[in-house]
């Protein structure tokens, strides 16, 4: 089944005179990063299973500009934003779903001022809605009773106040959700935000991702759940630096659901 992903592009649907229910904004990490591509595919498998009418922009998608903006390059950000908005408006996009909280935040909050007005949701919110509408079903499967801790992505949590959607999904897996000492509003950053992902950290006595991973490991989890490709990388590296990769997996919520359903 894994080779039969149905991933229509907006251009293809447009040629057929069709308009999908939702645009799946894949993002740069989801498109190019080997680890994040697995998250992208897991999410697509769920969309396919639920017969969601969606499309991607494919080669017409470009970086939202988030890392440029946070690095201080407002010019580059707005060039990217205006270009993307032109493409999305041309396809008359109404709703956008993305598995990257940085893309989510940028398109939801910073694009409207530049002419891009869409209903933007994070994939955990989208999945929760699918579940509520009965379009997907979830049973714990292999995660039943497992200890899972959720790392709040800053750009989903504090930045946009979404704390419960990912947690509700974990609970639906019949897993045991355990919270870290810093969670939700007080969640500690993974260290990647604000363009830190693309540079070496400043001098200090520790890396932020190691500090966060220690907090996560403190809950004695079997799985660290994430909702952001960058957090995922940072936490995976943190787990490796603690030599715990044999015991603790770092997985995206979409992967948990796809795996539980054997997709």
């Amino acid at each position, binding site marked *: 089944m894994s080779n039969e992903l149905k991933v229509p592009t907006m251009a293809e649907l447009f040629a057929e005179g069709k308009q999908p229910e939702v645009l799946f904004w894949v993002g740069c990490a989801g498109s*190019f990063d080997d680890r994040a591509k697995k998250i992208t595919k897991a999410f697509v498998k769920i969309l396919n299973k639920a017969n969601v009418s969606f499309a991607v922009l494919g080669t017409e998608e470009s970086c939202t500009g988030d890392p440029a903006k946070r690095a201080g390059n407002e010019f580059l950000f707005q060039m990217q934003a205006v270009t993307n908005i032109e493409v999305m408006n041309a396809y008359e996009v109404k709703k956008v779903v993305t598995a990257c909280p940085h893309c989510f935040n940028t398109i939801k909050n910073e694009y409207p001022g530049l002419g891009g007005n869409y209903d933007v949701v994070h994939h955990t919110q989208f999945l929760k809605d699918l579940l509520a509408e009965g379009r997907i079903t979830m049973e714990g499967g292999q995660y039943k009773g497992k200890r899972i801790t959720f790392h709040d992505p800053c750009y989903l949590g504090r930045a946009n106040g979404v704390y419960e959607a990912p947690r509700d999904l974990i609970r639906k897996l019949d897993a045991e959700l355990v919270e870290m000492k810093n969670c939700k509003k007080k969640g500690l950053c993974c260290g990647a*935000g604000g363009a830190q992902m693309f540079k070496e950290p400043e001098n200090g006595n520790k890396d932020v991702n190691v500090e966060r991973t220690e907090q996560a490991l403190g809950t004695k989890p079997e799985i660290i759940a994430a909702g952001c490709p960058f957090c995922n990388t940072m936490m995976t590296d943190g787990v490796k630096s603690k030599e715990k990769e044999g015991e603790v997996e770092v997985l995206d919520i979409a992967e948990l659901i796809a795996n539980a359903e054997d997709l």
Partner: protein
Amino acid sequence: MDYLPNIIFLLVLVAGIGFFAKNVKALSRNIKLGKDVDVSDNKPQRWKNMARIALGQTKMVVRPVAGILHIIVYVGFIIINIEVLEIILDGLLGTHRIFAPLGVVYDVLIGSFEILAFLVIVSVVIFWVRRNVIKIQRFLKPEMKGWPKKDGNLILYIEFVLMTLFLTMNAADFQLQTIDALHYVKAGSFPVSQFIAPLFSGMSEASLIVVERSAWWLHIIGILLFLNYLYYSKHLHILLAFPNTYYGKVKPKGQLDNLEAVTAEVKMMMDPDADPFAAPAEGADEAAEPDKFGASDVTDLNWVQLLNSYTCTECGRCTSECPANQTGKLLSPRKIMMDTRDRLQEVGNNIDKNKGEFVADGKQLLGDYITEEELWACTSCNACTEACPVSIDPLSIIMDMRRYLVMEQSAAPSDLNNMMGNIENNGAPWPFNQMDRLNWKNES
């Protein structure tokens, strides 16, 4: 001669309030050195924020110990001010306990002032112990050395002395009431000071009056001095917390503003009909210097950011939640606010010294106060803005200074230049071809 105390009181009061008005004017002038920013939106939400966060202290209790102690001092400060009203009226009119005819209500009022005063003393002592004995981490950071530490302690000493004077005054008064001294009407209840009164039991009426009057005068003079100390200390938050929470961010925390000057240029670049050689529009001021992108000094920041800096009381909750600071990096969001305030004060003093004109002093916020290393350590995670009990936004200042570094100075770290080059050339922060964006679909 009978009116001499009234006249002296009036002079003291006018001087105290007059100096305070002068301080407020200076403060307001300095804040207005910032750029204009539109904060006329979301009025109902803004009022709600002020009521909830400043008046209701909701963010303070996130840390319960400091939060509850703070509420005691805060409620004490507000309630005991009703007593200050009586003191002022007595002072001006030459009366004694002018509200005494309120009877039982007065007894309840004075009684509750006393209990609050006692609780304030207890809280202030605990605060002092937290700062000086237990050595709580956030009070020991490098930016807290020297004046900020002294300032913090000084405020606690003043509050301790003011409350002690208030209780001493009441104790002496109570003793005078007991011995039926002239003018000392039987009024008020003294749940706390009745235990201090026995100290005065052997004293003559004349000595008691000296004690009572001295405490009364010192108390009100102390309050007026404290009012004027605010401007020179970190303690302005007792006033500025209210406007600051009103003007605080009402958009989602993740939303940064889009620079309008950039939007205009980008729109022109993207417009196929735009004439790059077009003459400036009729009436455009050619002499006007184009706006600087981002901020290198306090006058590049907006006035809400400058108000933020005066509102900061250096509690350090932001810094203790900051992931960069927690992992030993140089960045401390509290220091960003303190630096902004100190530089603003320096610019303001410069203007005062030079008859209303700022004379270049070869200094600026960037470099002389805040270093690039601090700015680049920020992960933009919003832990600092979430932690602040009075809606201060250090992140917006960090971002404005990064904008200056990148857009005016091209001074980004080389890794970030590579990232931005990639976005520019192939639409992703890594060197992958945009045409390969959908390759994942067919990879197993």
